[in-house]
Structures are given as structure tokens and as C-alpha cells.
């Protein structure tokens, strides 16, 4: 080996030249014929199987390639026609007849048949391990009538049925394709009647969607190619947007001020059904007493938490149901921050000398740690000593689902245009143990009864009343301390328009436009 300084310098220069010449080739702009939009987000989906998807990163991507008989309107509250253009409901509210839109084809060119609809809906309903089995169990049968009519029978009047059928688990897929490729392939490359076709998916890296040439809505989608990339670091994501490397991205609240200050970018705001709250384990002996839970509600300075954690972009919430969702009770009593009242209630409950509680925080989640630290200070004023335990996310959530926790931070976004999903999660004991809170007792049973009644009540006004009463009970019983609700934010460059995201979080990009 012979290293002279000259040679080393020459090597270095050669290296630099190569680097800079690579820099040149990359920046030559190709003649743009097709419109291609690239969006980045922080985390990749795990499955696109409509029967198995359960996380927001899966669910929000569902209506790129898939569609149901009906779909959620942009406001997240109403139902609009999709594959079925009309429908009738029987007098007893137990039979629904859907008439298929004529000549709709799947993205593989096959025509949509009633058999496909029957197959798809029953597949999810009967799928072992599907988180949606319980909700769909109300569907007694799905049958066909003639060549273009599907008859759905339910076991009891179900006001949420249309909403349920508009949800992604009821997406219609071609039976022949699904049976041919099997579950794994459905999860990786679902075929449906949505505006796009998923043409490639490199896990943890990017999904590429192409325009579905068979899409039934004339002239849509407006972009030829849509790419969803994964960029875990938020700083990098925003820098990519600023440099023009990507066209759009969701914006974490922490970055919002920075992005809004950039005059080259546009930030769209969409109301959301997401509510952040603190779950109190009602099955825990210390928190079993409702006075203790009420005391904690009074001892929580929600205003301060909202300002710090949502950077002022959140709105205080007083129910686990967001104001952007239907049946939100607008007349709930105001929650006050009152440390004296909290102390009183704690003394009544026998904790005059203080109370020790533990909160489980996902390690590495700085906002949760911040939330816990603030809460520790706030609760300390009422004599509650909050111990912060940092454990990894999977352990924390497994402790939560096993009821082995005291205080836990969480949030939920509604997946349907109806109130029944969240209400049942929170008030019906047998399904998820009142969403892991272990809430029980007379009041809980009362709330459960209200929710069950509302689940069968076809009169909208009456339903609103029932759900309203239920929200009052929940607020009084405090299985959770509602904190705030934050909108969804999507930032994009100026040449992008018509970005849509409904309050359920679903991206709707078929009308997305990009001008050059």
C-alpha cells in the first residue's frame, strides 16, 4: 500500500467530483406529463385488510382503494351513496334493500356483483380476531335479490346501520380475487372500487397509488399517482416539505407555528372527533370511590394542559364525544378547576392525609412525560402524590388492557359517522370493560342502558336525548377526565388544492389537484 499525500488528495478530489456530478444528474427535471403527489407521514400502515385494520394509520388510508355500499360525507356526520345509489328501509326497520349503481367495476376490471357484497360484509363479520366482529354481529344476513339488489337484515332496529356499512370494515372487494390471493395479500394489496389502486407497498418506506381507470365517478381522481412515504422524524418531514421534496404532510402540533409562519406553505385545518383524556382505573381500590375521581377532575387544570400540550390549538373538551361528532351534548355543566373542592372531596373519601397514585407513561413520548409532569404538580396542590412510571409503549398498553394501572393517558377517534361506537366502547361493560377503565356500579349500568336503548332507537331526537343523558352521567362519574380536542392539520405547498380529511380522520384525495 502506498499512500502519498498527493494521492490521497487526488482521491479526495475525485470523490468530491463524483458527489457533485451525482448532484447534477439528480436535479434534472423530467418532463412532467402525469401529476404525482407525494405526502409524508410519521408511521406506516400495518395492514389494509378491512377486516383487520385497527389503527389510525391503517384506517385513514382505507378509502384510497376501497369503498362500501355507502360512505361518510365530508362533514363526518351524514351518509351519502357510494356503490349503492339508492336504498329502502322496511317499516319495521329490520330490512334494508340496497340497489347497486349500474356498471361499477373493481380496479381489476371485474364488475361488482351482489355476491361480492355478500362475501365482503360477511367476511369481516365472521373473521376470527377481527376487532369489528362485535359491531357487525347485529347483521343477521346479507342476501341478494335479483342482479342488482342486496338485502341486509338486522336482528334489531339499528339506527347506526348505514353508518356501519359506510365504515371500512364493510368495504366491498371482489370475491374471486380475495379467495385466490388469501388474507396476507388482501392486507398488502386490497382491490376495491376506490379512486386509487395500490400498486406497490414497500413496508416502512412508501405506498404508491395509481389512478383507478375504472372509478365510477367520472373525471376522478384528478391526480395520476399518489405516493405516501414514511418519514418518522417530524423535523425532517417539515424540511422535506419546505424543500419541495414532498407536496404535503400531516403536521404535528409542535411544528404548527413554524409551518404557519412559512409563506410558501398552506395549512388546512379539519375538525376532528379525536378527544384526549386521562383514564382513571375505576376498578382500582383507591379510585373506586367516585368522590376521588371527581376530586381529580377538580384538581386538574385543563386549561394549562391544553395550552402546553396542544400549543393552544386544542379546544377544551367536556365529553369523550367531540363537538365535531353527532349527538355531542352542548348543555353539559361546565367543568371548573377548583383545588379547594378537590381537597374537600378527598377528605370526605378518607384521603385527607394524601393519596398516592401512579401514572404509566410511554417512554420516549416526550409529550406524555410533559403531561404527567404537569399533572403531578397540579394534583400535588390537592394533596395527591402522582408517581410517574416510564415504561415502553407496548407494555403500558398491555397493562392498560389488563386493568393493571391507575392513571393512563389516551385518546380515541371515532371511526364511524355515528355516536354508537364510542358510546359503546365507554359505557358497555362486557365489550371492552368500559374501555379499560373498569367503570362499574349503578350509574354505569344506567349509562349502559341508555346507550343500548339509543342503539335501537330510530327517532333521531330521542337518540340525541339518550346520548346526552349518558354524557351527563359520564361527566358526573369521571371514568375519564376529558382534556381537549384538536383538529387535524395537513400542510402542503401552494400548488396543491382540494385536500380533504373528514372528522373521522379518513383522507379523501380523489379531488386533489396539483398545478405546475
Amino acid at each position, binding site marked *: *500500500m*502506498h*499512500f502519498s499525500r498527493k494521492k*490521497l488528495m487526488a*482521491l*479526495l478530489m475525485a*470523490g468530491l467530483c463524483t*458527489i*457533485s456530478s*451525482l*448532484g447534477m*444528474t*439528480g*436535479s434534472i427535471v423530467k418532463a412532467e406529463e402525469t401529476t404525482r403527489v407525494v405526502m*409524508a407521514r410519521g408511521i406506516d400502515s*400495518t*395492514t389494509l*385488510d378491512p377486516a383487520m385494520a*385497527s*389503527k389510525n394509520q391503517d384506517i385513514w388510508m382505507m378509502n384510497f382503494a376501497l369503498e362500501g355500499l355507502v360512505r361518510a360525507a365530508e362533514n363526518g356526520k351524514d351518509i351519502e351513496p357510494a356503490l349503492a345509489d339508492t336504498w329502502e328501509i322496511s317499516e319495521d326497520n329490520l330490512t334494508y334493500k340496497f340497489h347497486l349503481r349500474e356498471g361499477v367495476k373493481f380496479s381489476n376490471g371485474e364488475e361488482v356483483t351482489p355476491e361480492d357484497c355478500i362475501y365482503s360484509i360477511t367476511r369481516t363479520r365472521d373473521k*376470527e*380476531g*377481527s*376487532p*369489528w*366482529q*362485535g359491531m357487525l354481529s347485529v347483521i343477521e344476513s346479507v342476501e341478494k335479490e335479483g342482479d342488482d339488489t342486496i338485502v341486509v337484515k338486522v336482528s334489531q332496529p339499528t339506527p347506526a346501520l348505514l353508518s356501519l356499512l359506510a365504515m371500512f370494515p364493510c368495504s366491498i372487494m371482489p370475491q374471486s380475487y380475495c379467495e385466490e390471493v388469501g388474507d*396476507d395479500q388482501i*392486507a*398488502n394489496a386490497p382491490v376495491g372500487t376506490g379512486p386509487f389502486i395500490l400498486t406497490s407497498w*414497500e*413496508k*416502512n*418506506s412508501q405506498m404508491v397509488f395509481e389512478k383507478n381507470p375504472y372509478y365510477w365517478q367520472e373525471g376522478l381522481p384528478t391526480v395520476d399517482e399518489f405516493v405516501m*412515504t*414514511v*418519514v*418518522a*422524524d417530524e*423535523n*425532517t*418531514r417539515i*424540511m*422535506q416539505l*419546505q*424543500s419541495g*421534496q414532498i407536496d404535503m404532510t400531516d403536521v404535528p402540533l409542535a411544528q404548527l407555528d413554524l409551518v404557519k409562519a412559512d409563506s410558501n406553505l398552506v395549512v388546512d385545518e379539519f375538525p376532528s372527533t379525536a378527544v384526549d383524556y386521562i383514564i382513571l382505573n375505576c376498578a382500582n381500590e383507591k379510585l373506586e370511590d367516585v368522590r376521588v375521581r371527581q376530586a381529580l377532575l377538580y384538581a386538574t387544570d385543563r386549561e394549562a394542559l391544553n395550552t402546553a400540550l396542544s400549543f393552544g390549538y386544542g379546544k377544551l373538551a367536556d365529553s369523550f364525544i367531540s363537538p365535531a361528532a353527532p349527538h355531542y351534548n352542548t348543555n353539559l355543566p361546565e367543568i371548573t378547576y377548583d383545588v379547594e373542592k378537590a381537597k374537600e372531596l378527598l377528605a370526605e373519601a378518607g384521603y385527607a392525609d394524601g393519596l398516592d397514585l401512579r401514572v404509566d407513561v410511554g417512554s420516549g413520548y416526550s409529550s406524555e412525560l410533559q403531561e404527567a409532569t404537569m399533572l403531578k404538580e397540579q394534583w400535588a396542590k390537592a394533596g395527591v402524590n402522582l408517581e410517574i412510571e416510564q415504561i*415502553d*409503549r*407496548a*407494555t403500558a*398498553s*398491555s397493562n392498560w*388492557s389488563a386493568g393493571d394501572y391507575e392513571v393512563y393517558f*389516551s385518546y*380515541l377517534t371515532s371511526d364511524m359517522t355515528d355516536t354508537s361506537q364510542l358510546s359503546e366502547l365507554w359505557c358497555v361493560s362486557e*365489550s*371492552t*370493560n368500559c374501555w*379499560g377503565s373498569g367503570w362499574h356500579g349503578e350509574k354505569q349500568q344506567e349509562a349502559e342502558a341508555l346507550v343500548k336503548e339509543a342503539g335501537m332507537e330510530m327517532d333521531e331526537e330521542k337518540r340525541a336525548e339518550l346520548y346526552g343523558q349518558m354524557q351527563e352521567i359520564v361527566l358526573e362519574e369521571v371514568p375519564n377526565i376529558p382534556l381537549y380536542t384538536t383538529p387535524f392539520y395537513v400542510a402542503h405547498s401552494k400548488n396543491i388544492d382540494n385536500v380533504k380529511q373528514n372528522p373521522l380522520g379518513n383522507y379523501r384525495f380523489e379531488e386533489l389537484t396539483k398545478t405546475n
Partner: protein
Amino acid sequence: MKEFNYIIKRILQMIPALLVITVIIFAGMRLIPGDPAITMLGTHYSDAAAEGLRHKLGLDQPLFFQYLLFLKQVLTFDFGNSITMNAPVWDLFKQKAVVTLTLTLVTAIFTIIISFIFGYAAGMSRHPLISKTIDSIALVMLSIPEFWIGIQLMLIFGLNLKLLPVGGWGSTWPEHIRSMILPAISGAMGTSALMIRNIEEEITKIKKQDYVDFAYSKGLKKGVVRNRYILKNVMVSTVTLLSMRVIGMFAGSVVIETVFALPGLGSLLMQGIMARDYTLVQSLVYIFAVIVLVMNLLTDISYSFLNPRIRLE
């Protein structure tokens, strides 16, 4: 022949090591709380759904049976499907290994270039000012976190000068290489700093050896002495250090991958652990173990080439 026997012996020694590793990984993954069904269901967890999912994934089978299945996968090198990602582990590994391997190679090249130039300069120079300056810069480089350097580089070269991409991996090879430059520089900083100090120290030590003086007194040219007597002896410890760092980089530089949005092995493994994706983590760790053992063997073999006084026995 002796060398050949040595290599065979080392390969045979790997077998029990790998067996022990399978037990450790398998037990390790099951001992940490949480399970894939819970993380997969996330906020839509219910006991019934979790039970159904466990059955579907075969997680309700006896543990010993599950371990045997893992052993079978290991022996046949057919690792099965990742639980949470619906894709064969081997395919995922190959896909991500390309990224990580490229990153590791480019980083290693940058590391070698930077550290040899400065380490050599610092070690050989007679002016204390030069070595002191290089030492201090190396110390600073060592203490700056990788992600900070990464963000600064992206700000300067990506956002302001628009010379290089702001993270990402691109879709063609020229794009891949271009996107590797900044991450490789950020990754090379810390390692180079270590290597610079090491090379410098070794050179100053070897400079004072008798055989170097002897070489000079034989009348050999300065350059010859430096390259043939000094540099070659520096190589042994440098190769050890570099190979250790390269193995580390290959098993995943999660920070660099995250900051630069590179879909590599580090993030894959991290995600697998977070999701309690047993098959994915078990198989990846096993593959890493094989790679580490092979790399160690290769490093040991390379010693005998670099320094004939070291014999393989």
C-alpha cells in the same frame, strides 16, 4: 493447513453459540410484557378479538412448541411471515438490508478517508499545534450527537443549498447514493473521531520503536518507512476498531435512519420490538448474530494478512 483447520474450528464453534442465542432471543421476547395481539388491536382491543387473533397467529400454542417452530425456521433459513407486517421476514430483511448495507459502506468509506487523513497528519506532524487542533476537533466531533449533525447538514445542503435531498432513499441508484451522502457524513463523524485518536496514538507509539529507527538508519526513504513500517502496523488496531463499528452500524443506526427517513434494518427491528412482532425480531436478531460471528472471524483472519507475526491457530 493450520489456517484451514483454524477456520473450520471457528465455524464449528459457532453452532453452539447460535443455539444459545436462539434460546436467549426466544425467551427474551416472551419475557417482556405485552404481546402482538394487544399491540395489533391497539385502541380497539377487546378480550374476544385478542383471543381470536392469538389463535390465528398460533400464539395460543404451548411455548415449547413455538420454540421448536422457531428452531425449524432457523435451521431451514425459512423465517416465515412477520406477524404484524404480513410479509416474509426474509423479504423484509433483504429490502431493508440494501439500505443499511449501502449506508454502512458509504459511512465506512467516509470514516476511513476522514480518519486516515487527520489521524496520519496528527500522528506524523512535528508541530504540536497541528495535533492539538486535530485532537480538539475530534473531541468536539465525538461529543456532538448524530441527529443534531444530521439536521444541520440537511438544513444547509438540503434546504438552503438544495444540493442534496432532505432525507429519504429515492427510487433509483443515483438517487440512493446521493441520499446516502449526508447520513454517511453524520454517521462517520463520531467513528472518525475515535479512529483519528487511535491512529494518532498508534503512530506516535510506533514512531519511537527500534525497528523504525533501524529502518531510517538503513537509509530507507522517509516515505517508505512511513508507509511500510508505521502505517501497516497501525492497521491492526484500526481494523479491529473499524470492524466493530461497522458491525454496530449494520445492526442498525436507528438514529440516523430516523432522522434521514431511511427505511433500514434499525427502524425495522425497532418497530418489530415495539409491536412485539415475535417472528420478525427473533429472526432478525438471529441473522444479526450470524453476521456478527462471521464478521469477527473475517476480522481475525485479516490480522494474519496485515501482520504476519499473528498466526491463525
